[in-house]
């Protein structure tokens, strides 16, 4: 064990085990999580080789092998609970990229949500047992988030009772679906339904793409891998082009909408139901943001306690870089953010389950707010995490750039979260649409509830874009409640400004859509402020639920740091809205620096509490024992370039270069 880390752990003000229980939800959850972890980590069947030294094709092969083993093991260990399946997969795949993953995360859930009972009977069993490996093909080469723009067509032919699938243009080729390139033999394809000469919009179809037995593409199907990407080397994201490809009528998922044998179209009852899956995935991504940022913080903070550099006072030994104020200022706000997002993620998961209960009883009233919140928080947390992982990597200096740090892999595999399941800017604008609706509702005299209820206070306060001090409150910068209040005022103000600017543009331009576009920078800002408020609020409320004094104290410091850092970074909003004064901002900046010093002794224990095992971190710099340099040297010796003492290119190129000149 590295001496520095040993000292850090001994000096912490709390027992990280107790904090781990808070993060997992209960001691029982922690116990069960570790049980599953050990099941995998101690199992020789899951060989955890270092992917960094493998080619893309080798990485794909390893992932497929692990998927296959995993299916066997889950049956053997009888792991069926969805949450446990998630843990199980995450662990043994380390980076959670698996070519057959879409079968479970998209193909089967879509079949369950949109397939009739007969359809489920036909396909569910074989897809659960992987006789069918399915994927979900929505995105096209030229079209993404805007669903109505998709070009793939499914034209019904009543004579044969078949749908004819076509990719009419190059931009309509399905592009990106995971597992499509090489692995899957079926896909749920989203296509524009045309029957009796009329287009009825997007519907889902089950499309066989590869032949059983040979795995060769079926006639009429062109399918392949879309080539190398930033990350996700293990995944065969694919393309799919269909050329007058016929499938039986029964392959359209018909739980909601139907096409009768004669071609008559029957409309679905409600569109809102499809929100459910999206909300689930986006809520899950909020938690994923928290986990990835937590991993990055673990690596950067442990390494910063091991790394010594330069001098603070001449003559003394080189200090740990974690003792530099600038290093603390880079890392501790991110650590606080990671904790904030852990709690936001837990809240989203709970809310999703609660509202899902309501939905199953036919109560859809809370769905629009949840949908808006999930969209906004997915964007808010993934943007922050994206920047945060990068900041952690850069805080590790040169070694952060090496794959040995694990940080490049965490980054490249996380960053698509900003794009998939709804591009972040578009997500923010969806939240903004809900905020604008709520604002209008308040103005027409109706109260709104939930997270936006602060808008109810607006009409009485007559906020103007450049008002003088109208806020009745004085912000106490040491009170999480009071800071939540300040964030609420900021959100209210920015929502109001966006709404007013939108109205002004409408008056000038007379087209709602043009006005919306010309206000969209304001609208995104309003959504961000709303999400930021939600995060601060959830963090400060979490403090009340914690009994253990030492844990509460340390979380309270993190909560304050998270809130104050956000104020400092957005000081203009708080000043311009007269929510805080200049001298308060100065106090905020001073308080942040004090908090850095207060958190410093607990920093290592705070990342230990995330409880990531070394294999899961995949980082030489972030090792629990802190023996960084020895292992770094050993790791480098494994580089493929070191296989021979003199590289062949010396003989091929260098030698002749030297002799010819």
């Amino acid at each position, binding site marked *: 064990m590295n001496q520095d880390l040993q000292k850090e752990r001994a000096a912490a003000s709390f027992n990280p085990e107790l904090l781990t229980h808070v993060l997992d939800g209960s001691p029982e959850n922690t116990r069960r999580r570790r049980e599953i972890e050990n099941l995998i980590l101690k199992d020789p069947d899951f060989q955890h080789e270092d992917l960094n030294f493998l080619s893309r*094709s080798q990485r794909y*092969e390893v992932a497929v092998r692990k998927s*296959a083993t995993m299916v066997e093991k889950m049956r053997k260990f009888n792991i069926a609970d969805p949450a446990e399946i998630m843990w199980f997969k995450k662990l043994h795949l380390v980076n959670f990229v698996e070519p057959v993953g879409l079968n479970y995360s998209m193909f089967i859930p879509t079949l369950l949500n949109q397939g009739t009972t007969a359809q489920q009977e036909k396909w569910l069993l074989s897809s659960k047992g*992987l*006789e069918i*490996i399915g994927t979900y093909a929505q*995105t096209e*080469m*030229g079209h*993404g*988030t*805007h669903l109505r*723009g998709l070009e793939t067509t499914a034209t019904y032919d009543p004579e044969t009772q078949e749908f004819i699938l076509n990719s009419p243009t190059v931009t309509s080729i399905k592009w*990106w679906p995971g597992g499509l390139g*090489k692995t899957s*033999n079926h896909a749920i394809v989203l296509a524009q339904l045309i029957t009796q000469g009329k287009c009825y919009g997007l519907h889902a179809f089950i499309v066989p793409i590869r032949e059983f037995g040979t795995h060769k593409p079926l006639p009429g199907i062109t399918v*392949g*891998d*879309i*080539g190398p*990407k*930033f990350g996700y080397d293990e995944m*065969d994201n694919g393309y799919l082009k269909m050329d007058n490809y016929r499938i039986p009528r029964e392959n359209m998922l018909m739980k909601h909408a139907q096409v009768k044998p004669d071609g008559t179209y029957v409309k679905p009852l409600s569109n809102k139901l499809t929100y459910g899956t999206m909300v689930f995935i986006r809520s899950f991504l909020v938690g994923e943001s928290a986990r990835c940022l937590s991993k990055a913080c673990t690596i950067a903070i442990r390494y910063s306690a091991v790394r010594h*550099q*330069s001098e603070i*006072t001449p003559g003394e030994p080189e200090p740990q870089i974690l*003792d*530099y104020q*600038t290093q603390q200022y880079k890392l501790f706000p991110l650590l606080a953010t990671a904790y904030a997002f852990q709690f936001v993620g837990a809240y989203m998961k709970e809310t999703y389950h609660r509202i899902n209960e309501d939905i199953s009883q036919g109560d859809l009233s809370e769905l629009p707010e949840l949908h808006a919140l999930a969209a906004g928080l997915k964007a808010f947390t993934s943007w922050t995490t994206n920047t945060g992982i990068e900041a952690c990597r850069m805080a590790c*200096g040169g070694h952060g*750039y090496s*794959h040995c740090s694990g940080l490049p892999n965490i980054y490249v595999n996380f*960053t698509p979260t900003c*794009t998939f399941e709804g*591009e972040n800017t578009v997500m923010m604008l969806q939240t903004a649409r809900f905020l604008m609706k709520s604002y209008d509702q308040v103005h027409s005299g109706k109260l709104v509830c939930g997270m936006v209820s602060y808008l109810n206070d607006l009409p009485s306060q007559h906020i103007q874009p*450049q008002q003088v001090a109208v806020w009745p409150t004085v912000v106490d910068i040491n009170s999480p409640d009071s800071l939540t209040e300040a964030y609420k005022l900021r959100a209210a103000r920015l929502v109001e400004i966006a709404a007013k600017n939108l109205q002004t543009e409408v008056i000038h331009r007379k087209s709602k859509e043009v006005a919306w*576009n*010309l206000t*969209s*920078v304001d609208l995104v800002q309003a959504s961000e402020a709303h999400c930021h408020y939600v995060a601060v609020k959830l963090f400060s409320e979490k403090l009340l639920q914690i009994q253990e004094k030492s844990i509460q104290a340390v979380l309270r410091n993190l909560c304050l740091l998270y809130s104050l850092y956000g104020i400092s970074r957005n*000081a*203009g*909003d708080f*000043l*311009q809205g007269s929510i805080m004064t200049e001298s308060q901002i100065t106090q905020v*900046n001073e308080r942040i620096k004090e908090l850095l010093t207060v958190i410093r002794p607990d920093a290592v224990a705070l990342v230990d509490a995330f409880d990531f095992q070394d294999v899961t971190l995949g980082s030489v710099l972030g090792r629990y024992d802190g023996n960084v340099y020895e292992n770094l*040297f050993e790791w480098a010796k494994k*580089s*493929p370039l*070191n296989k021979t*003492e*003199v*590289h062949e*290119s*010396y003989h*091929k*190129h260098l030698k002749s*270069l*030297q002799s010819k*000149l």
Partner: protein
Amino acid sequence: MTQNERYEAAIKKKFHIQMLAQRLGWSEDSRELYYANRSLSGDLGLALQFVFQKALRSLGSEEQIAKWDPLCNKLQILATYAQTELGHGTYLQGLETEATYDAATQEFVVHSPTLTAIKWWPGDLGRSATHALVQAQLICSGAQQGMHAFIVPIRSLEDHSPLPGITVGDIGPKMDFDHSDNGFLQLDHVRVPRENMLSRFAQVLPDGTYIKLGTAKSNYLSMVVVRVDILSDEVIPLLQKACVIAIRYSVIRRQSRLRPSDPEAKVLDYQTQQQKLFPPLAKAYAFHFVANSLLEFFHRSYSSILDRDFSLLPELHALSAGMKALVSDFCIQGAELCRRACGGHGYSKLSGLPSLVTRVTASCTYEGENTVLYLQTARFLVKSYLQAQESTSQRSLPQSVAYLTAPDLAMCPAQKVADFLHPELYTTAWAHVAARLIKDSVHHLQTLMQSGADRHEAWNQTTVIHLQAAKAHLYYVTVKIFTEALEKLENQPAIQQVLKRLCDLYALHGIMTNTGDFLHDGFLSGAQIDMARKAYLDLLLLIRKDAILLTDAFDFSDQCLNSALGCYDGNVYERLFQWAQKSPTNTQGNPAYEKYIRPLLQGWRSRL
């Protein structure tokens, strides 16, 4: 390509270009070679030869230059520059490698005493270099004399095998720079002759007497040179390319509708997309002028420094350090923004953007970690501020900080939106904020010291605000350089006009992202912030019209962009499909199917 293949390709390219240069008589600092490099996107092996030579010419005596430089030019030796160690980076004094003088044999014994002293990261070291310029602690006559540079032969010129006492190899896979064999070097009492210590600024006489000829700073000179060069040779073009790709793609890509009746709109017509892409574009242009201006300043001061006149060195050092940090930080952010602005396809390597991002992002660390560099600028600012306060001092302040003594307005005079389009107005605003933050940072430092804190501890406890002050100062300098560059374009009014919009956008975007600093002491009012914001948003629409031509003007060939999204003809989707089909995953078989997928698919069946 694998790491091994990319390395080989880079060496091969270097080989061909060297033959070409020799045939056509291009000298090694020539414009021709710079252009040739630009067209190959710098994907060349043996780049460190150049760093070695720069260091040699800055730190070597005339005899040493005469001996080693021609060997480098003819590639009879392949050299690298080995400074960073496994446990030590930017902080030179902390390096552990030792060079102990042995008067009996007139040799230096170069040695890595610990694991953390192993040289780590130097480019071309892993597999290629025959010689390394090793930075080591000089010990002679029993005294430590600090860091000096030594030429150490590491591989046999006959068969390329490592020489006795040398352990050398590649440090393993990185985020990028696969083509470069960054390496490690462990030295076990390796002996080099006395003449191998570079001795322009310090000498060791045969009997071991140490003679100092320059200031302690002179050793930094080679770093200053490299920092200036690296901006225009490597860092800025990467941002420019990212802008070209993202902006071209944004007029091809259509998504959603602006009006229900319209066809899908080009994504560049969305305000949010403009707000993502135009500030990086403005930066790409701003930094072009910044790099030019720095180079001019460098050449002005360089010759006097070589004559051992060090008066301009502090400013040169502070400015080059800070600008390297600011420009690389913004280029990193900008390139990543461009990548993400291309949605899913930006994640595909076929877009060319991931490689630009992973490449530019290394620049936050190499040639000096950015935070450390900002703080070097900050130290210079503190000194300059204190100098400005001494009314007795007759010496004028260095040019870049002259504004510290200029008369300052307490409030911005802007009254309408259009006022924010006056270069003088926003330059003054930036000068005001920079001056205030520098004043605050000095004030904080002094208060802490007066309350009894040790000078060094006080510095550490105020570094966050020093960082902020340095960034504001550097932003001010870039705004000023950009506006001055515009003035020189009077004869080309059309060009001047379009660049002025970018300059305005650059300055205002900086204000918009730091409104707190401008509101803080009431320099700008809330109403003025709203005006500046309006001016900023209006500029987006004006720049939209010229956006494509502004990216065409960088004049990168398709081959050099290597992007399916950013090609000049805009045939994005056709190219994307073609390139994907060529991917090895599609042209080679799928061994995973036979091994795992097939049993998986059939295992279930057999159990039925």
